[in-house]
């Protein structure tokens, strides 16, 4: 992604959400303003690694580049109850401890392969972590599927379809479809 595209992505993390300049954060990363959640720089870094582990960079952008961690924070901050917000933050911290224990190193320091294997057995981490992780994963997937990148390039969203066909032929095995006129 070129720089222009990257800036546009940042602006669209969550509609009109203000992206704070990098210099606001010690880590030098972009961030957003939160109203309810109290999240440290380290928490945010861990979330960033988590969304990148869930949706890794391949030949298309992953969670980090699409700023899905900021999207998750934005949604938890605005669209969840105070109880959910507290259990999210507590669950994140519990996850951090559990991961250190299991991996012998902080989650972010482990190799990608080991991080993925760990997330696959998140069920072993107990209810608090499980609840946090399912919220994180749901919001990460939502942010990904509704990101400008995916909606423009991968699973295209049509704002103005201009058509309806109630007998659209399914693709055949060779990928072709019979050409049928819509109404």
């Amino acid at each position, binding site marked *: 992604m070129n720089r222009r595209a990257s800036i546009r992505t940042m602006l*669209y993390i*969550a*509609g*009109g*959400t203000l992206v704070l300049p990098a210099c606001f954060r010690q880590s030098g990363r972009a961030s957003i303003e939160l109203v309810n959640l109290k999240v440290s720089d380290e928490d945010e870094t861990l979330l960033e690694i988590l969304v990148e*582990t*869930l*949706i*890794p960079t*391949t030949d298309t952008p*992953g969670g980090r580049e699409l700023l899905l961690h900021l999207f998750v924070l*934005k*949604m938890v901050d*605005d*669209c*969840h*109850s105070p109880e959910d917000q507290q259990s999210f933050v507590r669950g994140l911290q519990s996850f951090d401890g559990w991961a250190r224990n299991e991996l012998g190193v902080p989650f972010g320091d482990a190799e*990608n392969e080991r991080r*993925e294997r760990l*997330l*696959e057995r998140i069920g072993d981490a107990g209810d608090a972590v499980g609840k946090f992780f399912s919220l994180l*994963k749901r919001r990460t*997937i*939502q942010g*990904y*599927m*509704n*990101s*400008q990148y*995916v*909606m423009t390039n*991968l*699973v295209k*969203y049509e*704002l*103005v*379809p*201009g*058509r*309806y*066909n*109630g*007998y*659209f*032929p*399914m693709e055949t095995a060779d990928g072709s479809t019979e050409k049928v006129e*819509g*109404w």
Partner: protein
Amino acid sequence: MANIAIDSVKERTFDAIVIGSGASGGWAAKELTEKGLKTLLLERGRDVVHVKDYPTTNLYPYELEHRGEITHADKMANPIANRCYAYREDSRHFFVKDDEHPYIQEKDFDWIRGYQVGGKTLLWARQTQRWSEYDFEGPARDGFAVDWPIRYADIAPWYSYVERFVGIAGNKDGLATLPDGEFLPGYPLNAVEDHFRNSVDRHFKGRHIISARCAHLSKPQPIHIEQGRVQCQNRILCQRGCPFGGYFSSNASTIPWAQKTGNLTLRPHSVAHSVLYDEESGQATGVKVIDTNTLEEIDFYAKVVFVNGSTLNTNLILLNSVSDRFPNGLGNDNGLMGKFVAFHNYTARISAEYDGLLQYRTDGRNPAGGGYIPNFRNVEKQETDFLRGWAAAFGASRYENRDSSGVGGALKAGLLNGKWSNWRVHSHMMAETIPKEENRVWLDADKKDKWGVPLLHVSVDYADDDWQRRQDYYDRMTEMYEAAGFTNIKTQDDGRRPGNDIHEMGGVRMGHDPKTSLLNKWNQLHLCKNVYVTDGACMTSTATQNPTLTYMALAARAVNHAVQELKQG
């Protein structure tokens, strides 16, 4: 300033005043201005100018701050508005927030409101069906409410008149229970909707699945182009306001049309407090208005007043129009005003799956939503223990299953490579309710809103017959689903409160007799003939049809009558 300009009585005098700019008020204003009457159109909310005031209309999902979701704080602050299916991040600015206009719920009642120019025409579901003769005959035949003072023949030409201008997509289905209209091409049923239609035709005499009729321009005619509207683009983002004018709203259609005549004065931010009555002439003289910006009380005058404030607000305004002659509300000698409020019972759904016709899916979006099942219950004669019947929506669709198990590359691949599901079919019920005297609204004796208008008490509820009708819907739909080979059939009570059908009707009902009704066959108050009510408040019974088309036809018909009366002096 404006106040100086309206200081003189002359400046505040019009030929006609219309209260409310929704579907029926917009129509009244269009008809009055086209017939040359200088008309004041009052709207309690802000102005919403077509296209210009649709801030979300062209936003992609990722441009919405919360991707369409409502925030937790909003949900806590507005539980009533949040129970409406259409209350979303992209449309919430067209809804009344709970604290903006309080009312007193004697029983749970969701009063869903849109206070702005255009009212709820920006938010409506756009389904438009004519009433049939069976519906108008219903109360007299079955012995409830009072006899409608009109029959199908009285309103049929006005349905046609309104339909041509609004633009209704539909097919000529030839059903006596749902008369055909002036249609643009109907939207097609899809493969499984057609399959269901054919199966029902084969197995069940007198039952029909048709393409839902809706106020969308499937093929605009010159009259629509002249309104500045073009073909519906199948966006199905209607509740944002449509930049194409692809569906009918007051904003896209009747109000700009009325403005073009030069005879319309549109006054937003104007709460109608009451209709003014002159005992000497025995007529209404105008409307008392509260300017919501200045809280000033201003009287406007006219020869004829149309009350189209939406059902419950029309009741409220008329109940609040008290004088020495009418201490209980304008024209309310019989004490029935505010009573016999009814609605539609929308509390039931039924879904299922279908494993056939997998060689097809749909492409694009259908603005009609799919199929419609006109009422077939108790039509020719009484067949059941309960009176009247129900209509239903029916639709079929497939969706792309996306595997969200796993993490990393497997998750990403699962999300991006959807697999088409089998067909899912769904239906919801739209049942008639019987108007009952105890279902009523009235004014609080002391409590007032911030404009000095009394708060409205609402006491409206379901009754046992509503649950009988619902059981019949479940039973009949299940047998039709089974005959069509649908599997995994699931019924669902959706528990919605009265009011959440957004089809509240009655309280100022039409009838022959001033002793048992408030309005005559021309929608005039029996006891104050230059006041017309042509919104949902006038309804004597509810039938099963979506009611807006009928309000619009009644409004056009009533204006025609009012203008004739004025000409005859």
